C-alpha cells in the first residue's frame, strides 16, 4: 500500500468525503450502541426528531447554532489564511461584555439604536481583543496559537471578575439577593433582539445577520483586494512580500475581522438568548472552541460553516432533550467526537491518494559490503 500526494482534488470528492465521514461516524457509534444494548436505528431516529423535526426543535437548534455559526466563521476567516486564531472563545466573552455594556448604557433609546449599538459594541470589543495577538504576531512574530489561547483564560477570568469579584457596571446590585448571589444586570426590554416567526420555526435575529456575514466573508475572500492579499499571504508569505503586500497590515486586519465575528457571537448570545452577562453559562458552553470544530468540518467555507453549525446545533440540542435513564448522556459527545474524527481522517483522502500494489522486488545481491554489519544490526 502506498500513499501519494494528489496534485488536484476532484470536485465530487470534496462533497463525498465529508458525507462518507458522517456515515462512517454514525456506523461506528451504531456499533457502540449495539454493544450497550440499544437499537441504533431508533436512537438515531429519536435524535433526528428531537434535533430538527419535533415541534419547536428547529427553533432551539437555530438558537444553539447561532453563536456557533459566528465562532465558526471567525475561525474559518483566520484559518483560511493560516492564521491560527483559536481565541474565538475569549473574543466571544469580550463581545458579550461589549454588547451587554452598550445595551445597558443605551437604556431608553429606540430599539433600533440599542440593537445596532450592541452589534457594533460586541464586534468592536471582539476585534480589539483579537488585534492584540495580531499585533504581536505581525511585529514580534509571536506564535498566535499560544497568545490567543492564553488570552482566552484572561478573558474568562475578566468576565468572572466583572460579575463575581467587583461591583462593576455589569453587575446587578439592586436587590438584596443579587448582592448575596452575584448576577449580571438584566438588559432593558428595548435591547432584546427580535425574532422572525416563520411558519416552520422561529429564526433568531442574529441568525439572519450571520447569513449576511457568511456571504460577506465569501465576497471578501473572493472579490476584494484585501481578501486577495490574505489569500496570497496564506499561500506563500514570500510571494506576498514580493508582490508589495503589506503583510503586517493584512495579519492585523484578519485577526481583527476574525475577532469581530467572534465578538458578534458574544453579542448574539446576549441579545438573542441570555439578556444578561453570565460568566458561568458562557464558559460552560465553550462556543469558541466548538467554532474551531465547525470551521474544520466546513473546510473553512463560509456557507458550509452555516450548514455544519446547524447540524451540530441540532445534535447538541437533541442530546439535551433526550438525556435520561433511557438515553446515555455521553452518547451525543461520542457521536460528535466520532464525526470530527472521521471528517478530519477523511481529509487525508482529499489530499492523498492511496494505491495498492506489489512493491518492486529489490535486487537480491544488494548490500554486498555492508552484509556483516547489517546482519549484526538487524
Amino acid at each position: 500500500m502506498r500513499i501519494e500526494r494528489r496534485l488536484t482534488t476532484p470536485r465530487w470528492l470534496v462533497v463525498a468525503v465529508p458525507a462518507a465521514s458522517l456515515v462512517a461516524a454514525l456506523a461506528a457509534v451504531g456499533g457502540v450502541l449495539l454493544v450497550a444494548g440499544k437499537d441504533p436505528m431508533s436512537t438515531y431516529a429519536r435524535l433526528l426528531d428531537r434535533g430538527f423535526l419535533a415541534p419547536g426543535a428547529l427553533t432551539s437548534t437555530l438558537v444553539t447554532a447561532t453563536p456557533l455559526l459566528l465562532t465558526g466563521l471567525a475561525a474559518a476567516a483566520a484559518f483560511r489564511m493560516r492564521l491560527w486564531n483559536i481565541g474565538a472563545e475569549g473574543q466571544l466573552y469580550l463581545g458579550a461584555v461589549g454588547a451587554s455594556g452598550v445595551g445597558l448604557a443605551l437604556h431608553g433609546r429606540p430599539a433600533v439604536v440599542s440593537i445596532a449599538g450592541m452589534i457594533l459594541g460586541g464586534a468592536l470589543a471582539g476585534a480589539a481583543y483579537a488585534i492584540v495577538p495580531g499585533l504581536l504576531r505581525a511585529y514580534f512574530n509571536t506564535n498566535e496559537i499560544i497568545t490567543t489561547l492564553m488570552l482566552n483564560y484572561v478573558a474568562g477570568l475578566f468576565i468572572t471578575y466583572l460579575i463575581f469579584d467587583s461591583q462593576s457596571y455589569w453587575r446587578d446590585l439592586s436587590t438584596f439577593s443579587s448582592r448575596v448571589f452575584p448576577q449580571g444586570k438584566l438588559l432593558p426590554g428595548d435591547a432584546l433582539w427580535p425574532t422572525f416567526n416563520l411558519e416552520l420555526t422561529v429564526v433568531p435575529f442574529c441568525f439572519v445577520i450571520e447569513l449576511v456575514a457568511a456571504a460577506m466573508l465569501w465576497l471578501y475572500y473572493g472579490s476584494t483586494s484585501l481578501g486577495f492579499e490574505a489569500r496570497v499571504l496564506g499561500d506563500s508569505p514570500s510571494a506576498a512580500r514580493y508582490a508589495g503586500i503589506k503583510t503586517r497590515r493584512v495579519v492585523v486586519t484578519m485577526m481583527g475581522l476574525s475577532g469581530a465575528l467572534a465578538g458578534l457571537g458574544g453579542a448574539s448570545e446576549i441579545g438573542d438568548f441570555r439578556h444578561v452577562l453570565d460568566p458561568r453559562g458562557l464558559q460552560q458552553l465553550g462556543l469558541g472552541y466548538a467554532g474551531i470544530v465547525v470551521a474544520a468540518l466546513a473546510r473553512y467555507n463560509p456557507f458550509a460553516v452555516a450548514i455544519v453549525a446547524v447540524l451540530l446545533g441540532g445534535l447538541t440540542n437533541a442530546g439535551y432533550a433526550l438525556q435520561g435513564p433511557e438515553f446515555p448522556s455521553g452518547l451525543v459527545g461520542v457521536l460528535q467526537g466520532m464525526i470530527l474524527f472521521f471528517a478530519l481522517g477523511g481529509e487525508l483522502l482529499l489530499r492523498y491518494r492511496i494505491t495498492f500494489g506489489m512493491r518492486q522486488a529489490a535486487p537480491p545481491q544488494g548490500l554486498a559490503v555492508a552484509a556483516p554489519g547489517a546482519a549484526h544490526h538487524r
Partner: protein
Amino acid sequence: MARVTAGPVPAVAMRSITKRFPGVLANDAVDFDAREGEVHALLGENGAGKSTLASILAGLYRPDEGEVEIYGRRVEFHSPRDAMEAGVSMVHQHFRLAASLTVADNIVLGDRRAGWLRTSPTAIEEKVDALAKRNRMPVNPRARIWQLSVGEQQRVEILKALYRGARILILDEPTSLLTPQEADDLFGTLRHMASEGRTIVFVSHKLDELMAVSDRVTVLRAGRLIGSVDTKETSPRELARMMVGREVVFKQSREPQDLEGREVLLELRGVSADGDLELPAVRGVSLSLHAGEIVGVAGVSGNGQRELAEAITGTRSRTAGEVLVGGRRLRSGDPDHAIARAVAHIPEDRLGTGVSPSLSVADNLILKSHRRPPIATRGVLRHDRIAASAKDLMHRFAIAAPGPDTPTRLLSGGNVQKVVLARELSSGPRVIVAANPTRGLDVGATEAVRALLLKAAAAGVGILLISEDLDEIMALADRIAVVYEGRLVGVLPRAEADVQHVGLMMAGSSP
C-alpha cells in the same frame, strides 16, 4: 576510462554512472575515482551534475546505469544507511541536526549501536570529546545545537560521520555558509583527516578554495565528465575554462548598442545588504543601467546576486547605499515602492516567490495590480476585467495551461516563468531586474524567455540580468558586471569580454 590496474585500489571508483531525472540527464556516463588519503574536489557549475554524483555515492539516489566500487568491492546502496555502513558519509549543505538536542545526542541519534536506552550519556560525551580533540574540531559535546555557530554545527555533522566510522567523507558545498575564518579552519581539519588515510570528496564551484585544499580535481559540465587533473599541475584559469567550457564565442544575437545620451534608468550607489544569516552579502555595489541596455551580472552562485536583486527591488532591506530609478530614490525594504516606480522583478525562486503556487493563473497575473484600477475599483476586484486580462496575457505570452483557473503550481517550470514574465512585462516596466530567468528551463522555454527580454530592451526598458549562466550573459548583455563575494570586481563591455577572462574574474581575480 581504463580501470586502475596498478597501484593501490581506489577508495571510490564510480564507473559510467548515468542518472536521469524527468527531462534532465543529470549524469551521463560519468567516471569518478578517489584515492585513499586524498582531498578530491568535484567541480562544476550549477546543474553540472556534481551534487547528483555525490548523492549517488552517498546512497541518496540510485544510478540508472553504472556501478560503484568502494575499496574495490562492488556495492549497491539502497539508502544513506547502507552507504554509511560501507563507510561513506555525506555532510549536506544544509545541516540535518536536531536544534534542541545536545551535540552528543545528535551524534548518536539514529545510530543503531546506541540502542534504545541511553545507558550512559557521560561515556558518549567523553567519546565525542575525544573524537573532536583528535580531529582538531573543538566543540562542547554538552552544548545544544541552537547555541552553536554555523561553523560549529558543521563540525558536529562531520563528527557524526566520523563517529559512525566514515572512511569516505563527502562535503557538499561546505563553505557556502561559513565565514572565511571558519572555512580556513575547515580546510585544516580536512587536510588532517586526509593525512589519516580518509578520503574527502569536496563538492564546490569556488576555484580559490579547491586550489587551496584539494589534491585532485574532477570537473563536470552539463552532466558529463570533462576530466581529472592534479591540483598542483593546474591553474584557476585552466579550471575555469574546463568548468565554463566553450572556447568558441557565441554568435551574437544582439547588435552593439550606442548608449550615448541615453537616460540612466537605474543607478546603484554603494548598495550593501545582509544575507539571510545577517552576514554582509552585498558590499558597496555601484552600477548604472541605461534605457534599452542589458547589463549582465555574472558570478558564481552565492556571491550575493540574489541579495543584490532583492536589495534593488525592496524585498530585502539595504544596510547602506542608494538605489535611484529615473533619478529618484527608492525606499529601502519597500517592494511596493519599487513596483510603483515601474521596477519589475523576475525572482530567482519562481514558484515560491514569483507566483503564489496554489492560486490560479489568473490570480497570479494580477498579483501586483490587485489594488490598482482597472483590476480593482475602491477595493473590489473586477472579475470580468481579471478574466479578460488573463485570457489576453495567456494568449500573448503563449502560456500553456488548461485554463485561467488552474492552480499555478500545476504548470511546468517554463509556463510558470511565462506567467511571471507576462505579469511583469505587461505592467509597463522601466527597469527589469531578472535573476536567473532561464534556470532549469528547457531549450524552448529558455529561448522564449530570452526573446521576451530582448524585445523589452528594444522597447527601451533597462534590464539588469543577474545570471549564473555565463552563456546567457554573453548572448544577451551589452555590458558585463562581475561580482565576487558581494563586491563588483569589474564591468566590461561585452565586446571586450571573453569567457576565460570573465571566468577568472568570477573566481575573484581583478580584471
